[in-house]
Structures are given as C-alpha cells and as structure tokens.
C-alpha cells in the first residue's frame, strides 16, 4: 500500500492508503506503487486513477500540478481536481473544472476526451 496525499493550494483534498495510483505525468502516464524510485514530475491535464487488483476504484480529472514519489509516499500537488463521477458526460461544460479551465484550450480538449472516454476504466 502507498500513502496517496492529494493537496491543492487551499487545502488537503484527501489522504489515504491505496494499492496503486495512475497519474498523468508530463512525459507519459505512470503508476505510483510502493518502493518506486524517488521521483519528481510535473503533471499534464488528464485522468488520475486509483486502482486495486487491476480495477479502477476512483477516477479524477487533474488540470495539472506536481507529483513527488518516495518509498511509501506519493504526494500530488494539484492545481484543480474533480472526481469524474461528479461530472456528467452529457453536460460536462457546466462542471466546475470546465469553468475554471476556460481559456486553456489544450486542457479543455483533454478534459472533454477524459470525460467521454477515460483511458482507465
């Protein structure tokens, strides 16, 4: 189990033990698992998936940020994050994330794609 801590500039969003978390790193998706080598990366907009035994338990959209991995800790510093379950794919344009991302074309396109067809299901 790895301790996943998701933090926004305002507050700690959640902190829990997970088996594996898949994150959208700047140069490709990667899985955070215990005993990963120490690693710091920035995030591109995309899906963050919390998984156990090859199934996605929870799914989020992150608009970007940073991640720091060491031994049993995975700290994710996000700009904005929203659970995908709270976004309705038919009217995702009304979601909070969409409104906050206004003006950032690439992130919006990614958001649309992730909502309609998340890479990890």
């Amino acid at each position, binding site marked *: 189990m790895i301790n996943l801590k998701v933090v926004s500039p*305002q507050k700690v969003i959640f902190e829990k033990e997970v088996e594996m978390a898949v994150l959208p790193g700047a140069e490709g998706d990667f899985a955070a698992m215990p005993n990963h080598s120490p690693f710091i990366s920035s995030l591109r907009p995309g899906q963050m998936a919390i998984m156990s035994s090859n199934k996605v338990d929870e799914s989020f959209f992150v608009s970007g940020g940073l991640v720091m991995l060491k031994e049993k800790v995975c700290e994710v510093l996000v700009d904005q994050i929203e659970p995908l379950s709270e976004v309705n794919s038919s009217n995702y344009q009304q979601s909070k994330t969409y409104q906050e991302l206004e003006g950032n074309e690439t992130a919006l396109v990614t958001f649309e794609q992730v909502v309609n067809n998340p890479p990890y299901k």
Partner: protein
Amino acid sequence: MPNLKELKNRISSVKSTRKITSAMKMVAASKLRRAQELAESSRVYADSLSFILSSLAGNTKNSSDLPEILTGRENSKISLLIINSSDRGLCGGFNSNLFRNAKKWISDQQGLGKSVKIMTVGKKASSFYKKTDLDIVASFEDLNSNDRQLQVSEEIKNKIMELFENNEIDEVSILFNKFVSAISQEPTYQPLIPLSNDETSEEESEANNSVFEFEPDKNELLEYLVPRNFLTQIYRSVLESSASEHAARMTSMDNATRNAGDMIDRLTLTYNRTRQAFITKELIEIISGAEAV
C-alpha cells in the same frame, strides 16, 4: 456642577459604542477562526512545494546553472517590498507596526545603496504610502474573500515576474504580519528573489541528499515551479496577514469593550452622585424655608 441631562446622554452614547465594539469583536473572532483554518490548511501545499524546489536546487551542483529568478542578480540595485496591510482600520497597532518596520527596512536598504520600490496590498498601505515619495509600482485592494485573495496573489505574481524580466527590480521581499497567536502578531519578511536559503532545517538537508529523478528535465520543471512557488508564498502571506488582522481586531475590540464598560461605571457613579446632590440641595432649601417661617 455637571448637568444631569448631559451625563445621561454621555452614558447612552458610550453604551452604544460598547455595543458596536463588542459586536465587532464577535465578528472578528468568528472570521479569525475561518482565516486561521485557511492559513493552516494552505501550509501543507506550501511546505511540499518548497521541499520539491529545494531538492531541485540542491540537486543542481553549480548554482550558475540555476535561473536568475531563483538565485537573484549579482549586482542587485533595486529592491521591491510587498506590504500586506489591511483594508479596514480599528485593528490596534496592526498597520502602524507594519509601517514602522517597513520604514526601517527601507532606510536599511537605502543605506546599502539600493533603491526601493513598493507594492501595497490593502487600502491602509496604499493610502499611507501615497503620501510618501516612495515609488509605488502597484496597489491591490479589497481582499474580502478567499477567491479574491487567490486572485490578487496571482496578479502580484504576474506583476513581479514581469518587473523582474524587464530589469525593473532585482530583489523582492514580502512584509506581512505573521500569525503567532490570537494575541500576538509579528511583522515578518519573506524573501522571494533570491529564494531564501537560511532555512537549512533538517527537512532541507534531507531534500538535498535524497536522489530524485526528475521528469521532464530540471529546467522545464523549474519553469513550472518558480511561478508556482511565488504564487504559493504570496498567497500564504496574504492568508497569514488576514488571520493576523482578525486577531488584532479581536484583541483591540475586546480592550475597547472593556474600556467602555469602565467608562460607563464611572459615568454612572458621577450621575448618581450628582442626582443625590440635587436632592439634598432641594431638601435643605425646603427645610431652611420651613424654619424661617
């Protein structure tokens, strides 16, 4: 002999002042709780970010490889001071303490042969520094909600990055009242450019020792991190300052309420004595009148 009617009016006006100050105290206390929570919950992000930044900087052996905005310019001539004041008064020595501190800092900098520019946050600082001959590069006001605080922090960040790139400033510090406790706030300087390296805490040395892999490469990460770090530090100082403001207001309004109470007691005593004196005087007049008959 004091006029009874005058005394009565005086008492009722002090009573209504007491009502106002005690209401302000309550409002400040509840706002303080909220501001304190915000300040504390934002700390996690800021700490992690500075950990990442220092491990990145620590990993780079040669400091000349680091961008100027992190290490500062060699011959720094112009310092920028960001002063975090409040929008409203009635908060004791909150602002005057800050301005006194800033004055000293400014003369110290000028003594070192640097020129000083000022950026003000809050109405009090902007109206105070308008009267001085200091160079004010920007003023921000009305930080009345959390969203607005974040927005202002973003604007300050953009402004200082722009000024630095145009060579209009070489150094940046923030001055704000650090929230120590509900009864004590401390004017504090936080250097932004160059990045402070006096915090050689245990955490920091750990950050310098652990070997991280970086993705993408360090320079690209720094490009992302440096503005983020500014934003976080500025936002944090704004939050601390707002917590301090409410704490200062709460303490000073508490004092004011207590003083008003004392004043009412004193006035009531005088009022009763005066009233009694009038009665006695009237009685004497009646009795001596009756005796004369």
